[in-house]
């Protein structure tokens, strides 16, 4: 018997021995390191596997040397181990040898004739280690045949899985089986025959009968792989629990080589499969197919099947035992994986489930959708976990389990009126004020007018919020009624008809009703309301008896939705994550990023600034005004000095003239102030110089407000104010505030939105500020078609960062990789202004902006991000460009506005026919930036002019940004030319 078995085994498994050949070389002790490069040949080897004839010749010589030196092998394996330790990769082949020798050693001690069995086993192992599909199939085929002896054997045979639990128990059990019962052997040889069949006729029709198990076994073999690797990772968790961390020495021990082995095997069948959990399944399958030459159809439909396939745990050991340690029985307390239904005992659960980022799932199941039948148990903790972990930990796990995205109800599983939902529809359904409770996958019907909701083919079960835009139109046979009475186009059920009759609704003559959400009903085609179905107290009772739904109170009462919000099934956080579009606003200093940010806040937030913020802003504005005053006073001193000097000069020149001017009036001039104001002025200047203005400030306003009034009204100050253009320090916005200085510095001053917009330094000038908003669904917003209802769900986050530190070597720009769009602000009116750059040299601000633009645009983080150029301060620019030529900035020296004449003849687009110089200038600058951008990145730059202080202008720019983000999503459907009006306009200058 045995020889027969071996012969068969040799013949069948010989195909795998193309590997083994390579092993034969190594037995000479130290050559083994050279096994490493063999790795590369893995794939070609796998291809060879399917070639049966070749292998037959190779099989015998391969096996013998292995047997011959069992003891030698042992050393060999040790060496291998060592080798494995020093090298990071071990070829799969060496793994096999290792395994083989281990079992060989055991055999040698046991019995003489176990040699044969060992041989066959090795062969099996060998085949298993190569993860050829056939070996797995053999296992699958056989295990039902002989359950009795199969346990151990199947364990052995199940390829890679065998490595870990091939402890001596199993081995010896298996050995005895092999030695004593020929039946088992026979069966195993049968299995070999099967596998041989498979191998030989891989592509032929003979495989068809196996195809069923083939599928399954594929899944399982892969699972085995995954299981093993997963297990290795978490192997010692439990030990750790039991013993102290400090004594980690043995505790932390991992089956290091074995983990490597398993992953190598994984790599063997598929290079990709190393630690990615989800992908390998598909890919490996193909791999196996190509090996086995299975039918093409399989590979065709596999990807579609995959998501629906229920993951099944690998069951080993007896029924009811732990899936990991195979100990215990049905009555031991176990935790269940919510994906694959694997059950683990308390000592294994932490190893098997790891850190449970998605709740109670095996490590290998993370990321997979849960078993829908277990949805009810989400977030309900078992006693076992509570015992194993502390309260905080359990709470985190349960929270993750309930709220993590992978565990949410997949929208396509819910069909409403015959149409599977998309994500947005599901969100609408779950976030409405009165959602269907405990939504499970299935087919539902939904009456949008009345809000009635039920399972398809059944009577209504609930009345939810009406008018939700989910699913298709309701079908007449949605609830499978046969009463001929229709309600909102649905034939109602007998129970409903009964209810209607009891509620006193006239149902004779098979009427068609329109029922509104408040229960008012009318006959189809008629105007007058005939009554309210649920109006009478008795009706509700009837409904309760017939177990029909009645409208919940929350529809009527107003306060209810709030509490519903809290109890609703989908957490905000995960919705947010899905629908948040991030827009980054950057710009050189003074380009108006903060104005745009504030404007967005005012535009889209119900409460743009909280009480606290307003208070802070008020203080900020007031201290700013003091600052401006200080600058004025400084200016006044200067002017006074100049004036005095002038006067002295005059006087000295006129000294000869004997005019008896009074000495006192000598020093008086237009810019002089009284002593009281003088002392105030001195104090203010002193505090400013010392930089304490903000510290002493709130108290100061109380004390000095009246003085300020006096000061402001003083002629000297007014005279100075008239010459404000000579004070470089004074920002342009200062006049806005200074004119109202008296009002602003009162204690009861409340800053208006406009004040806030104008105010400097309100948004933190350092660091980062962000605001979340969504565009209001305005009626006038005709840009969006009505179908885009879910658009209101999309939330946007405007993030403003300060330019400082955003240089080339910026350490944190990479944090913004998930940005959808960058809005780069440029102050158009900067073209004639100068600032000192990092090196201290004075440079045109527009050039500095350009430099900054270049560094941002070319930053690797933004490689795939669209840019929207905001040309800000267009109003200032329009006014300024008339006075100061744009060519002031050397970058714009080829600006020839005369082109406008040519323009007026040739174009007929949105801009009026006589564009102002400002508009021409804007387009010119836009084209400059566009060219720069496309030369740097090869992409298209979007441009929008903005007047930061005008809400409509900023609104338009942000809506433009939204459009760009949308286009981005649908890029494939549009051709580039359709994108931007601006590009066509602006390209006039490109000749």
């Amino acid at each position, binding site marked *: 018997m045995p020889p027969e078995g071996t012969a068969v085994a040799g013949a069948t498994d010989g195909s795998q021995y193309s590997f083994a050949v390579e092993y034969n070389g190594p037995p000479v002790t130290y050559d083994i390191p050279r096994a490493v490069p063999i790795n590369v040949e893995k794939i070609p080897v796998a291809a060879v596997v399917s070639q049966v004839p070749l292998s037959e010749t190779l099989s015998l010589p391969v096996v013998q040397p292995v047997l011959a030196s069992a003891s030698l092998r042992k050393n060999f394996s040790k060496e291998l181990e060592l080798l494995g330790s020093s090298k*990071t990769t071990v070829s799969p082949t060496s793994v096999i040898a290792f395994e083989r020798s281990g079992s060989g050693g055991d055999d040698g001690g046991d019995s003489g004739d176990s040699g044969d069995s060992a041989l066959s086993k090795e062969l099996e192992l060998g085949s298993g280690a190569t993860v050829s599909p056939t070996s797995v199939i053999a296992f699958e085929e056989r295990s039902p045949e002989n359950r009795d002896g199969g346990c151990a054997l199947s364990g052995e045979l199940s390829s890679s899985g065998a490595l870990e639990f091939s402890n001596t128990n199993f081995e010896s059990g298996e050995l005895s089986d092999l030695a004593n019962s020929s039946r088992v052997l026979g069966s195993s040889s049968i299995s070999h025959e099967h596998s041989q069949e498979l191998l030989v006729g891989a592509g032929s029709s003979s495989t068809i009968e196996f195809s069923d198990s083939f599928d399954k076994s594929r899944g399982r073999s892969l699972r085995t792989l995954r299981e093993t*690797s997963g297990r290795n*990772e978490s192997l010692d968790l439990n030990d750790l629990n039991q013993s102290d*961390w400090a004594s*980690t020495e043995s505790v932390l021990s991992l*089956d290091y080589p074995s983990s490597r082995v398993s992953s190598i095997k994984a790599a063997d069948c598929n290079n990709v499969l190393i630690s990615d959990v989800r992908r390998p399944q598909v890919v490996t399958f193909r791999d196996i197919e190509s090996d086995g030459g299975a039918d093409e159809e399989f590979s065709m439909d596999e990807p579609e099947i995959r998501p629906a396939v229920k993951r099944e745990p690998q069951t080993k050991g007896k029924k009811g035992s732990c899936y990991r340690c195979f100990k215990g029985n049905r009555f031991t307390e176990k935790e269940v994986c919510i994906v694959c239904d694997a059950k683990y005992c308390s000592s294994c659960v*932490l190893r098997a489930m790891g850190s449970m980022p998605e709740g109670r799932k095996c490590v290998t199941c993370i990321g997979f959708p849960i078993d829908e039948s277990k949805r009810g148990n989400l977030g309900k903790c078992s006693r076992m976990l509570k015992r194993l972990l502390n309260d905080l930990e359990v709470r985190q796990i349960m*929270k993750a389990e309930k709220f993590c995205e992978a565990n949410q109800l997949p929208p396509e599983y819910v069909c409403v009126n015959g149409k599977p939902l998309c994500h947005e529809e599901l969100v609408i359904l779950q976030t409405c004020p009165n959602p269907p409770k405990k939504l499970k996958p299935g087919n539902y019907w939904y009456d949008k007018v009345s809000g009635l909701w039920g399972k398809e083919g059944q009577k209504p079960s609930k009345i939810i919020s009406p008018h939700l835009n989910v699913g298709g139109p309701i079908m007449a046979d949605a609830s499978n009624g046969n009463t001929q009475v229709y309600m909102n186009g649905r034939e109602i059920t007998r129970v409903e008809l009964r209810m209607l009759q009891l509620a006193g609704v006239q149902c004779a003559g098979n009427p068609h009703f329109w029922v509104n959400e408040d229960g008012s009903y009318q006959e189809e085609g008629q105007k007058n309301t005939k009554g309210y179905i649920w109006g009478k107290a008795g009706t509700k009772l009837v409904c309760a008896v017939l177990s029909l739904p009645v409208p919940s109170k929350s529809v009527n009462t107003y306060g209810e939705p709030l509490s519903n919000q809290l109890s609703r099934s989908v957490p905000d956080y995960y919705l947010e994550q899905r629908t948040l579009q991030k827009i980054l606003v950057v710009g050189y200093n003074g380009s108006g990023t903060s104005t745009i940010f504030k404007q967005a806040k005012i535009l889209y937030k119900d409460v743009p600034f909280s009480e606290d913020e307003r208070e802070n802003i008020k203080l900020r504005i007031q201290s700013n005004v003091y600052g401006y005053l200080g600058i004025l006073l400084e200016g006044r001193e200067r002017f006074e000095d100049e004036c005095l000097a002038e006067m002295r000069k005059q006087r000295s020149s006129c000294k000869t003239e004997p005019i008896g001017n009074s000495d006192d009036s000598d020093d008086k001039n237009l810019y002089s102030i009284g002593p009281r104001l003088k002392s105030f002025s001195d104090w203010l200047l002193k505090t400013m110089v010392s930089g304490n203005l903000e510290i002493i400030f709130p108290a100061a306003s109380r004390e000095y407000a009246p003085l300020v009034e006096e000061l402001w009204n003083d002629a000297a100050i007014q005279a100075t104010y008239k010459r404000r253009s000579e004070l470089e320090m004074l920002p342009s916005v200062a006049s806005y505030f200074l004119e109202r200085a008296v009002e602003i510095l009162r204690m009861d001053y409340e800053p208006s939105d406009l004040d806030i917009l104008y105010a400097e330094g309100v948004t933190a000038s350092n660091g980062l500020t962000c605001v979340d908003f969504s565009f209001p669904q305005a009626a006038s917003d005709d840009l969006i078609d009505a179908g885009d209802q879910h658009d209101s769900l999309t939330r946007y986050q405007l993030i403003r960062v300060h330019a400082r530190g955003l240089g080339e070597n910026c350490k944190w720009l990479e944090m913004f990789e998930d940005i959808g769009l960058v809005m780069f602000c440029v102050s158009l009116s900067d073209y004639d202004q100068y600032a000192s750059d990092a090196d201290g040299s004075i440079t045109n601000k527009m050039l500095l902006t350009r430099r900054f633009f270049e560094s941002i645009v070319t930053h690797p983080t933004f490689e795939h991000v669209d840019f929207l150029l905001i040309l800000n301060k267009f109003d200032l620019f329009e006014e300024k460009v008339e006075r100061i030529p744009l060519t002031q900035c050397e970058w714009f020296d080829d600006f020839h506005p005369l082109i406008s004449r040519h323009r007026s003849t040739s174009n007929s687009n949105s801009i009026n026919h006589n564009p102002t110089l400002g508009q021409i200038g804007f387009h010119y600058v836009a084209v400059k930036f566009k060219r720069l951008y496309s030369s740097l990145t090869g992409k298209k730059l979007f441009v929008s002019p903005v007047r930061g202080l005008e809400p409509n202008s900023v609104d338009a720019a942000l809506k433009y940004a939204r459009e760009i983000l949308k286009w981005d999503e649908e890029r494939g459907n549009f051709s580039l030319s359709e994108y931007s009006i601006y590009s066509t306009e602006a390209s006039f200058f490109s000749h």
Partner: protein
Amino acid sequence: MSVAELKERHVATTETVNSLREQLRQRRLSLLDTDVAGYAKSQGRTPVRFGPTDLVCCRTLQGHTGKVYSLDWTPEKNRIVSASQDGRLIVWNALTSQKTHAIKLPCAWVMNCAFSPTGQSVACGGLDSVCSIFNLNSPTDRDGNLPVAKTLIGHRGYVSSCQYVPEEDTHLITSSGDQTCVLWDITTGLRTSVFGGEFQSGHTADVLSVSINGSNPRMFVSGSCDGTARLWDTRVASRAVRTFQGHKGDVNCVKFFPDGNRFGTGSDDGTCRLFDIRTGHQLQVYQQQHGDKDEPSVTSIAFSISGRLLFAAYGNGEFYVWDTLLAEVVLNLGSLQNSHEGRISCLGLSADGSALCTGSWDTNLKIWAFGGHRRVL
């Protein structure tokens, strides 16, 4: 004195300083007859050797949904706090690999986190320029979020790193993009002292990292984008005790050597260096030869408890274990089978030195420890 005159003087002075600096460097070079590795070799030391199970990944902490940017261990219990770009701090139990707290941050752009010495609170800072303190024992609010216990406001740039002063739950040192380091009093929420800044001799670029001397908590060292590391005495805020030059790129990470007399740095120039704080000398450069390719920047470093090993994570995903004595790479954890898939952004050693935790851009943290001699089969 006119502005032009002042400028002239400034230029002249800068030149003088530079020449003096150069002289200093020359002098140092001439005094430096050997480095650690050379001496160790001459003494016949051999590099540490690693068995296959000596350092293995024994746990994967999954739960973050964004890049992990920072982590810190508690000194006594085995808990870890990690900060991630998903805007959360997660406190882990390293033994069970379970989370105990998941703190949603008001500002999602967090760059660092720290555990307080007693393990009662955690601190974090980021692009919002403030350092937020969370008390782990305080009750959560209605939405299950932990409220901010204290906000330390005062930096004018992002907070790049923070560390509690050892043995003190009330003091914290932060470094910031505004070129300063600040010692905070947490109870009052005010700055105790500011190191560097406009008027003082401090860093001339963003400070990226601080490390407090374990044996003398009054001393700390900071690393900056200006390519230097500076040693500070918390009692003397006005000027740095010593400035350590040598790096040719931003110093991303500084870490005190366990004995407190040396510290290591990791830099954008691809090198790690060991400096002695008493002499100011550079003791050793740890550099892998990459030919003419760009050197991958060092993102984070840590010393083993004995100081013999230096763990260094690189921008290209490599993760070397250096023998500090012989300046040889003795292990490349990045190439191990179950290593991170993304760049390793932070590492930390548990207080007893028994485990190393790494945080990566692949959103996971992994704990590495001695694997023991357990039989494989």
